């Protein structure tokens, strides 16, 4: 992993530390989980599998599930990658996260009526 202090020369090939890579991976999973749960709940998924049935409860339960899975993913990836010096590059993880955080929530709304 680069430890240089130059602001530009290390940009692009800076290796992501295992913990940073685990955080990026967890955040990316968090984004896609929003998409999956949203599609599941809006496309007639089994309501009994929801944590609780009220409308706002669905929303809170969905967020809670995303947080718990995201945190679990962080600790799993951090443990798996703990022996490695670097996991991918910071730039590659950033691109993956940015694309996921834009595409996943929009895909999650697929098929919703605009209603205006």
């Amino acid at each position, binding site marked *: 992993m680069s430890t240089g202090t130059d*602001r530009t020369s290390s940009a692009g090939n800076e290796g992501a530390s295992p913990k940073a890579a685990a955080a990026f991976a967890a955040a990316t999973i968090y984004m896609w989980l929003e998409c999956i749960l949203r599609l599941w709940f809006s496309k007639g998924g089994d309501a009994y599998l929801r944590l609780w049935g009220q409308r*706002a409860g669905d929303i809170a339960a969905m967020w809670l599930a995303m947080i718990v899975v995201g945190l679990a993913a962080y600790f799993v990836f951090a443990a798996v990658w703990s022996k490695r010096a670097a996991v991918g590059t910071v730039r590659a993880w950033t691109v993956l996260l940015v694309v996921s*955080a834009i595409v996943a929530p929009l895909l999650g709304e697929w098929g*919703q009526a605009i209603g*205006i």
Partner: protein
Amino acid sequence: MVAYRFGPFEIGPHTMWLGAHGVFMLGVLVCVAFLAGAVWFARPEDRKLVPALRVASLLNLLAMLALMITGLVPDIGFEKGQAFSGVLRTDFGVFRSAVTDANVGAFTGPLLFDLMEHVSFVVPGLAALLCFLVWHYGRRVAENGAVRGAMLSVLILMAGWVLVIGNLGLYVTKVLTFPYTR
């Protein structure tokens, strides 16, 4: 929770929740503006800036969580069709407001209203990652171009989503609930 009167204004629980929601939104915007400016202009010799960045990123995450919760809690009453109703009598006439799940849905539809509710989960996830990166990389935020670029990308993305979702929220809470005369 009871409603309180201040002169011609009556402040009920929904108004209080919305007020708190707006204050936390302001807090988020202040923290994000500081973080964006500080990260953008940070130089390797600016190591004393790191504690401020850490505090700002943590405050930003906490304000974001409070913003989410104050946005979720008033939503509980929507399913009962009693989300917002009131009468304001002034010298200029009688103004009524009545917003229920049905008529909010009729205006915004599942796409916009549900998008505001569900896509908003993306933003605290980004705020948490931003906070983690600041605390994890410390002074390298000011030193390393790749880390700085990652932080700015997350900040811009977070600001973009906040802008979209915040405007949908403003439309629902400020435009649709604007009193009308009868």
